């Protein structure tokens, strides 16, 4: 019969239920936004994306106009020149400049405020660059070897750090929407008896499953599009989406993550415990899947672990659909198919388990 009528009925009821549930709306829609704003601000977004991204101070013990102009011309940073060491040091401590470079005879000191795990390597890198410029200017020699830096992108489009980050935030928002929604759906409704009540009606488990998860999928889409909208308006994102592929990725990734949620529910039984485990998993995935920190800098073991979590692949797919990663179409399809089949398989298996008799 009226499978379509049943479908509509359930879809409508669960949509109303979800939208009226302020907590659910908050977690699926506004929560990813908080992330976007915090990390967008941290990484500066594209609004603040002036090419030299660091401002440094320079103090020369023996003033040399030649050296000063060499530094200003050749260093890839904004350079402020200071007349005395104290005022430069103060500027470093106040955070007006990222580092202060004091150059005396045969010695370059780099003064900076520690407190970020990348700072030390960043500073030693900067030290090398300054040393090179200084030695060249003082010894008055030209380079025998010159290096031209050529940014690559896909189809000639070079992505910015922020765009990269954005792809990660989009991935996270749909993964969390997918995972927590099934934990909620099957866990909470099972516990409160809603599922039992529905299973005594003449409804097909698959109809129920399809319509109730479709609601979550749409919520996921809404959440993703709000994140994108805000990132364009607030942070001047430059992503170019291949919308059709993108929509497919959102679909399969959300489904895959629903499968993950179900898996947790099968392991932990109690919805609260599954939710807790889900939060841990999200935190863990965020840090090891190459979204906030370059994957290649992780210890080997962590890199291997990352292969087992979908966030790595979702991030890759999103970057592919936004022209930031190059994978073959075959790989793209394969990952999507695995996501979809795996997710649907797990969800179908469980829905049967949760809706059927005991």
């Amino acid at each position: 019969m009226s499978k379509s009528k049943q479908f509509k009925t359930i879809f409508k009821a669960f949509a109303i239920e979800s939208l009226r549930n302020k907590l659910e709306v908050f977690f699926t829609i506004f929560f990813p936004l908080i992330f976007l704003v915090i990390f967008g601000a941290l990484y500066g977004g594209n609004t603040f994306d002036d090419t030299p991204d660091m401002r440094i101070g320079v103090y020369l013990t023996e003033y040399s106009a030649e050296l000063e102009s060499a530094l200003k011309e050749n260093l890839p940073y904004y350079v402020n020149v200071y007349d005395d060491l104290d005022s430069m040091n103060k500027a470093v401590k106040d955070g007006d400049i990222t580092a202060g470079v004091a150059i005396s005879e045969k010695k370059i000191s780099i003064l900076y405020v520690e407190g970020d795990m990348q700072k030390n390597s960043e500073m030693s890198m900067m030290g090398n660059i300054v040393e090179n410029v200084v030695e060249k200017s003082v010894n008055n020699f030209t380079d025998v070897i010159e290096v031209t830096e050529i940014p690559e992108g896909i189809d000639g489009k070079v992505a910015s750090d922020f765009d990269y980050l954005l792809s990660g935030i989009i991935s996270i928002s749909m993964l969390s929407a997918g995972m927590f929604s099934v934990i909620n759906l099957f866990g909470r409704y099972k516990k409160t008896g809603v599922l039992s009540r529905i299973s005594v009606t003449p409804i097909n488990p698959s109809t129920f499953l399809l319509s109730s998860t479709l609601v979550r999928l749409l919520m996921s889409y809404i959440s993703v599009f709000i994140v994108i909208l805000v990132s364009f308006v607030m942070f001047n994102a430059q992503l170019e989406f291949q919308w059709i592929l993108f929509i497919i990725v959102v679909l399969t990734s959300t489904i895959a993550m629903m499968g993950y949620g179900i898996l947790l529910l099968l392991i932990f039984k109690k919805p609260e415990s599954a939710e807790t485990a889900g939060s841990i998993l999200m935190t863990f995935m965020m840090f090891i899947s190459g979204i906030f920190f370059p994957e290649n800098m992780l210890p080997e073991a962590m890199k291997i672990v990352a292969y087992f979590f979908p966030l790595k692949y979702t991030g890759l797919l999103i970057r592919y659909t936004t022209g930031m990663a190059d994978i073959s179409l075959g790989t793209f399809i394969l990952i999507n198919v695995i996501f979809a089949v795996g997710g649907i398989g797990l969800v179908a298996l469980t829905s049967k388990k949760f809706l059927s008799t005991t």
Partner: protein
Amino acid sequence: MSECVLKVTDLKKRYGEVRAVDGISFEVKKGDVLAILGPNGAGKSTTVEMIEGLRKKDSGEIEYFGEKPVHITKEVKERMGVQLQKSAFLDNLTVKETLEFFGGLYKKALKSSELIDMMSLGEKQKSKVKNLSGGQLQRLAVAVSIVNDPDIVFLDEPTTGLDPQARRMLWEKIENLKVQGKTVIITTHYMEEAEVLADEIIIFDHGKIIARGTLQELLDSVSKGKYVEFSLDKVDGIPEELKKIEGFKEIEKNRYSLPTEDVEKTLSIIFNISHKENFYIENITIRKMNLEDVFLVLTGRSLRD
């Protein structure tokens, strides 16, 4: 003879060592109200849930409307209305939306407005489920159970946890179902509920049926009599002569009861003794036997134990 809508034969279910349902057989005729009575854990809900298709049976047969499917079918579900003991609905839907939601899952559905009137939920139709009181929620659960205009309705402990007023109101609604000719199966551990509503009563204990019949049949099966209950004006020592009367029982402190088939005769015996032993009889009540007494006699335990 009227049509048999449900027939259960030798139904069994065990959980590990516990025989939750141990060879239950009964049948229900169209238009009857059957009450399944028993203490908590007697196997009432398990039996009903097996019939509803929520639990798998270990063995036995269930015949619905003259057919014996291996598993419950959609067609059967279309003709069946169910109210579960733990009736959770979607919290954020309103009463009206909830009825429309469940209505949408069946081929045929009654109008939500009709059901709302029937269950006196008019004032609350726009309230969200989470804001309903216990009585309102139970009335909604009953309304949902008949949303598909079913031929048979299962009500599992429909009035548990309700105050007497809400309970009576719900009873009225259930009686209306009977008037409409629906077959109703109620599980309950309130004997009064069974007495008020049921045409036939089945008493469960330890997964078995220990008695069945109409209220009168059940009462008669135990005794045809009544009880005389009374107190004494002195507390110390019950006269030996009283104790010797058959069936004498102290039901609470300074409250005694005697079963009798001839009230007058029993009263005169008691008064004779009181005269002789020099004490007064106080607070005499004469009451009919009820299901509680039947249960007590059959199991030696009270229903509420």
